């Protein structure tokens, strides 16, 4: 019998899991909107340069916790942290010496509804740098290209950088918002249901992007789509009624969750 031709298949390198390090520690965190408590005793350690997904039914506190990570909740009247702390690199971000403005430069955010500013694409990307007073044209040009490439948008918009960002499609707008966030070089990017208003193709592109970005950034994503959490995240936290129910590797959460509530939720049989 003749030996057949070797099978021409490239064996991909095994996925680099590498050593993980904790970047954000949430300890016994409690949070209220006025009299209504939204989070109860949340304990969570988030890995650097990984994607962590927060899942759970509406009103379970996942978005609240996300917004606590860059203190966006400061802007809402009557919010109280009643117990516990959040540390980033060991620093209590609600401590008296921490400036929320500086924190937000390190912990960027992408919102549910894509919110490009009604300025040109170029101005959108450099907004954060303009605020910080970066004025050098060549440096700005360089950052715009780098950020747009990072957000996988460069090829689509490089010929119309000075057209309005509002004229882009929904998926492009959301990637523009991601480019804008990474232009200020944050360490952590918070994403609040970034694909909820996008069609499947645009969603797939954003997911590709998240997968690429985790090489350089720690990403925390709130999502209502279980499949999205399963696809993009390395770890998943399931919240219910303001409490953290289960936190584990995404594969464990989706294949063999320890908690029956988690199982009911991820298999779409809740309540």
């Amino acid at each position, binding site marked *: *019998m003749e030996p*057949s031709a070797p*099978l021409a*298949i*490239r*064996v*991909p390198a095994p996925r680099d899991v590498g050593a993980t390090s904790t970047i954000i520690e949430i300890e016994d965190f409690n949070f209220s909107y006025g009299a209504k408590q939204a989070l109860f005793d949340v304990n969570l350690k988030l890995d650097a340069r990984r994607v962590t997904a927060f899942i759970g039914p509406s009103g379970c506190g996942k978005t609240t916790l996300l917004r606590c990570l860059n203190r966006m909740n400061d802007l809402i009247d009557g919010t109280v942290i009643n117990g516990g702390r959040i540390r980033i690199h060991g620093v209590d971000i609600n401590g008296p010496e921490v400036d929320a403005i500086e924190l937000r430069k390190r912990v960027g955010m992408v919102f549910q509804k894509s919110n490009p500013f009604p300025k040109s694409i170029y101005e959108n990307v450099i907004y954060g740098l303009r605020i910080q007073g970066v004025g050098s044209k060549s440096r700005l040009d360089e950052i715009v290209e780098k950020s747009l490439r990072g957000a996988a948008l460069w090829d689509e918009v490089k*010929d*119309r950088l000075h057209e309005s960002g509002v004229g882009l499609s929904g998926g492009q707008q959301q990637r523009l918002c991601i480019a804008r966030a990474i232009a200020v070089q944050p360490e952590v990017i918070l994403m609040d249901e970034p694909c909820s208003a996008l069609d499947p*193709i645009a969603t*797939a*592109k954003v*997911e*590709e992007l998240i*997968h*690429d970005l985790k090489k350089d950034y720690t990403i925390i994503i709130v999502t209502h789509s279980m*499949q999205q959490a*399963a*696809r993009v995240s390395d770890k998943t936290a399931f919240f219910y009624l303001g409490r953290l129910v289960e936190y584990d590797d*995404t*594969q464990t959460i*989706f*294949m063999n969750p320890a908690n029956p509530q988690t199982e009911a939720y991820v298999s779409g049989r809740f309540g």
Partner: protein
Amino acid sequence: MSTEPMPDFPPHMKRFFDAELETFRTHLITMGETSIRQVREAIKALVDGDIALAKKVVAADDELDQLEIKIDEEAVRYMSLRAPIATELRMVIVGMKASHDLERVGDEAVSIAKRAVRLAAEPPLKPYVDIPRMTTMALEMLRDALDCFLHIDTEKAVAVIRRDEQVDQLNKQLYRELTSFMVENPGNISRAIELMFISKSIERIADHATNIAEEMIYLAKGKDVRHDDAVKKGVSNP
């Protein structure tokens, strides 16, 4: 800005987890190659009376078992995290089934190798002609079936299914021959029985190849032809 209209449908986009599916396919192909090698070496050990080679075959079966476990793990992981749909879904299901068939092919190789060790202690009953011939046919079927996995080719798969009949015929012929050997001389009985079992093993290997070919048709067309006699007899095409 280009004035060309957008194509109606965006070009195929590569997803970050395509690599996982590729790994899965690669593992399956590796498993196929390994099981073919195992069978070939078991038969070589039988023909040459090479006990060392036979023992190597027995030892190497672990490789296949590990690959089967790995493929199953990958399939379950892929199904639970990536929500495969359509061809991808069939690919994963077919991959799991095919890996099971290949593992069984590996087991048959071990069985042949073990019998080869026992037969090596005695002179051969007759020159080994039919068994290598049958093996070649069975392995060609297996290879063709696996080829369909690489390049979707239902024609080839159907051809594999139809060739199973020839191997069955050869097996029956060998069976009668060996029975006559036993009738002639009771001293031949133990060797003849071993050879009968070896022949049966090869016939089983061809059956597994047929199974895989049927699964490939399912992969390509989403159509189950397992118990469709018309396809087997060449009356109709899937």
